């Protein structure tokens, strides 16, 4: 059974990712282009899911424009984020970019 209101937004017809409109729980059944599948992880609002199977090296398209490249193969409906895609310009960083044991040398 398909949900009344899709939790996913397609921003541009050329996009190969979909934007999450509301929290998706792990195990929830979602529908992508008429195909039902089960979410393999929970995903927060504003994050991206793969609209197709995506191969390493392939460009990720959002707003119809490239926003980076796939760094590890992605299954249909899988969460697309820093673990499987990267910038074509400047690497992204997280809160672990600087660690205390690196700044304390004594």
């Amino acid at each position: 059974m398909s949900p009344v209101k899709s939790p996913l937004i397609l921003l541009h017809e050329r996009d190969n990712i979909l934007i999450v409109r509301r929290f998706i729980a792990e195990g929830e059944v979602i529908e992508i282009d008429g195909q039902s599948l089960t979410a393999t992880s929970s995903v927060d609002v504003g994050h991206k899911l793969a609209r197709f199977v995506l191969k390493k090296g392939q460009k990720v398209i959002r707003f119809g424009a490239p926003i980076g490249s796939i760094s590890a193969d992605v299954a249909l409906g899988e969460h697309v984020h820093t673990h499987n895609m990267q910038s074509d310009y400047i690497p992204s960083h997280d809160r672990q970019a600087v660690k205390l044991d690196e700044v304390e040398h004594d």
Partner: protein
Amino acid sequence: MINGYLRQDGRKGIRNVIIVAYLVECAHHVARAIVTKADDPNVQLIGFPGCYPNAYALKMMQRLATHPNVGGALLVSLGCDGFNRSALGEAISDSGRPVETFVIQETGGTKKTVDAGLEAIGRLQAELVDTPRSLMDVSELVVGTICGGSDGTSGITANPAVGRCFDRLVYEGATCIFEETGELIGCEQVMASRATTPELAAEIEAAVDKAAAYYTTLGYGSFAPGNADGGLTTQEEKSLGAYSKSGDSPISGLIKPGDIPPQGGLYLMDVVPDGEVRFGFPNISDNAEIVEMMASGCHLTLFTTGRGSVVGSAISPVIKICANPETYERLSDDMDVNAGRIMSDGASVDEVGEEIYQRVIEVASGGHSISEALGHQEFILTYKSFEPIGPSCLPSR
């Protein structure tokens, strides 16, 4: 029509602020004590912490102290600091604004300077009571936009809605400024295609190339961990979302912080320093961007946020537009506009753009923005260095 404050230099403001400015960190406490004891929301603290002279800092302080929203100034120097306090004082005085300068080492220390400063505030307040009012058309407004705490919703809701608001303001003759070339990496070609001349297009592409090189040298993009928490994965993804704040109007010019746009239209601000990398990151936090917008004359700033920033600013009101419907639920007390309803309730981008436009008129007419009412008056200014803009950057001048 907006009922503005007419300055002797002919500029019109939407607020009547007295700034208390420390000219080195060593004078910060004294300046803050004067502001705290004055207990008047229109007496506001700004300042520059460094002791070494810097042309950018002097230009920024001059532009801010003579901002249309500012009616008078109190300068606080320790005494041995390198800031050119006499040049700043003369520039403020030449603009027709009352100014008093206190040098802590000459006045006799903390207590005496705070007391003398408070008396000076009383004189400035008395003088500002008589500031002439003047009707202001929308075309006389200068409006900036920045985004802070962006997430995956920013580029879908709040940013395009601000773009619609900008389109209307520009259509009505106002001046609109968007910025952070480091957050436009990946958008250089589409942005250049909107420039009013091919020479300006080349300048815009060069400015983004400079930003990419600068951030690459520093080792981090203009990308915070919270951006990734909110679903943004790369710099260029964040850029495309940020870019939509600019709307669809032609780009009339490329300015640098402190340059005042010569006439109405949409302008891009190049905030990345020129020359070799020095003094660190271009803008160390969101308020540094707001300060540069104000230095170029912005009467108010439209601030879009997905994760949920709470900041405001000294001198110019900040209007907060929340992109993410879940963030809005938690932080609605800090937000002026809920653009998240585009995602949660199916509101149109045009509808929210119109709501932002109406909010701009309300706040320009004297209504308090939410951050203003909550007492937010953040301010930060650090070292930078710039070359003047090239002749192709302002084709209409």
